[in-house]
């Protein structure tokens, strides 16, 4: 203790932390392995349906990764993340619509054409969702607790009703995407986004990037400040860091991730409608985050797998599947505070 200055966490007793890392690492690898291998197997067995189901799980998980950054890591319980998911979806839909029609999205003050390029769509979805979240967050983050929940919901509902009543892009009937947006071609058709497996792999890559970003972010100075903003914002301010801008930036990043997932979702389904913007979806995302484990890196993935599986397989048997969802949620909230990931992989120790 006198000569050795324990300046890294490695110097802390780590015996039980290590065995615990193994279990967590194992659970995470199995989860990722299954998510990656099952669709590949299904594809080569000719079951495209299951490949698309895996894409759906992956995209919903990615949307929940975004929400988890706000709720789990930032302590900002947003009940309006459907706004970003839906906006991302509409960016894909509207862009494809104008590319297909060869009409400009807008011609004044400058001309913005449609585009059928996935890269353009993704970039636009991320930028627009970030801007929307900047505006909504700047206002909402002046409130806390139940008011924050309500005001984020209110903003999302405004956008929902706006989309519902805007006939140009289908109003409440939604907007079809006739041809899935495409990636730039490298050589021959290596990256054919209309191929189910290729599209799944694109989504899987997106999910991995979103999770890697979250993980890296939370280890940085920004992440340290965000963690403290969640745990004790008076302490953060007393330490010389204003909590509000930290929260706002986290909220914006969170929305951008969910928005990118929304763009992927619209292209997966070939369709975007106001239901992507509805509060039901905001609620489902929250349920997924809670099911999987609030503030756990793999929580959104575990939650999305469980949710979509129940919806698909139980939903196929009975239309009352949400009754079972409710029971599972009850079980998780009562008996596994850290969600499915906490239950499978043990609780996480803060350093």
């Amino acid at each position, binding site marked *: *203790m006198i000569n050795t*200055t*324990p*300046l*890294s*966490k490695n*110097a*802390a007793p780590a015996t039980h932390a290590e065995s615990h890392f193994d279990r967590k690492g194992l659970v995470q690898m199995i989860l990722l392995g299954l998510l990656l291998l099952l669709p590949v197997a299904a594809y080569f067995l000719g079951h495209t349906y299951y490949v698309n189901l895996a894409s759906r799980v992956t995209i919903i998980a990615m949307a929940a990764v975004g929400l988890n950054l706000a709720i789990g890591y930032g302590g900002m319980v947003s009940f309006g993340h459907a706004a970003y998911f839906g906006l991302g979806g509409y960016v894909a839909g509207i862009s494809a619509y104008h590319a297909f029609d060869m009409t400009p999205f807008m011609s004044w003050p400058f001309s913005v054409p449609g585009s059928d390029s996935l890269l353009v769509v993704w970039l636009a979805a991320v930028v627009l969702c970030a801007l929307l979240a900047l505006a909504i967050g700047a206002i909402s983050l002046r409130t806390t607790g139940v008011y924050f929940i309500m005001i984020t919901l209110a903003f999302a509902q405004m956008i929902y009703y706006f989309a519902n009543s805007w006939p140009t892009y289908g109003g409440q009937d939604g907007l079809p995407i006739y041809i899935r947006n495409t990636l730039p071609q490298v050589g021959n058709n290596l990256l054919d986004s209309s191929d189910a497996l290729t599209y799944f792999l694109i989504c899987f890559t997106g999910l991995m990037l979103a999770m890697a970003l979250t993980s*890296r*972010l939370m*280890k*940085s*100075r*920004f*992440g*340290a*400040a965000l*963690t*403290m903003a969640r*745990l*004790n914002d*008076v*302490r*953060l*301010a*007393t*330490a*010389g*860091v*204003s909590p509000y801008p*930290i929260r706002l*930036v986290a909220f914006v990043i969170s929305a951008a991730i969910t928005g990118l997932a929304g763009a992927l979702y619209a292209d997966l389904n070939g369709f975007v409608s106001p239901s992507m913007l509805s509060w039901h979806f905001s609620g489902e995302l929250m349920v997924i985050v809670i099911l999987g484990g609030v503030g756990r890196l793999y929580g959104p993935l575990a939650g999305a797998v469980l949710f979509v599986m129940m919806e698909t397989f139980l939903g196929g048997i009975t239309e009352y599947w949400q009754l079972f969802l409710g029971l599972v949620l009850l079980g998780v909230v009562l008996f596994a505070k850290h969600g499915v990931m906490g239950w499978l992989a043990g609780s996480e120790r*803060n*350093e």
Partner: protein
Amino acid sequence: MSEIVLSLQKLHKRFGALQATNDVSLNLRPGEIHALIGPNGAGKSTLIGQIAGSLRPDEGRVYLADTDITHMSIAERARLGLGRSFQVSSLAEPLSVMRNVMMGVQALQSHSFRFWKPVARDQQLLKPAYEALERMQLSHRAWTPVFELSHGERRQVEVACALALKPRALLLDEPMAGLGPEGSAKLTELLEALKLEVPILLIEHDMEAVFRLADRISVLVAGSVIAHGDSHAIKQDPRVREAYLGDSDA
């Protein structure tokens, strides 16, 4: 003016009908401990709140050296070198002691919009935080989560957090409360060593500690400073004896 580190000028604060701060002016000089004593509800914590920025005074100004900080946020004041500990300790409990102290270091070095480099291996953060902990004789607890600490250790962590800001002035709100005689004696010693570097505005109920530590004492009753002077003068002051120390031992 430049000799004075912290100066309150004619502060007033009302909570409805209650005059919690009534025309309070006092200052803090380099190298001293200025103790603020007074009965419960006198408005001591309210005064600290106005200095640290968690409360806005209705009237009056607060200066840190020559800078008017009356309208600055809590975080801005902290970065300028105003360190504070709370009457009821306020830390991020699930986090390690180190993580709590590191935040002040981080705030001093740059803005917190750094997204890439992991803090766990950042010697620029770890070293100064560790030094602050050593000053409070707490380095052996660096990686312990705060919720496992004793009451007295938490108080020390709060002071270490404040030290991480390389403060120009410290505001300590009843740091000895609930420590017991042993803890009190230890903290008294630490503060005595500290004051040479950082002047301290100290709120304290432990009269033994106050009379030992304080270079000057101000007595606050019902929002007003009723007496001011060194330990000797305060012990003798009849108004203080009446209002606060109690006349029984006269």
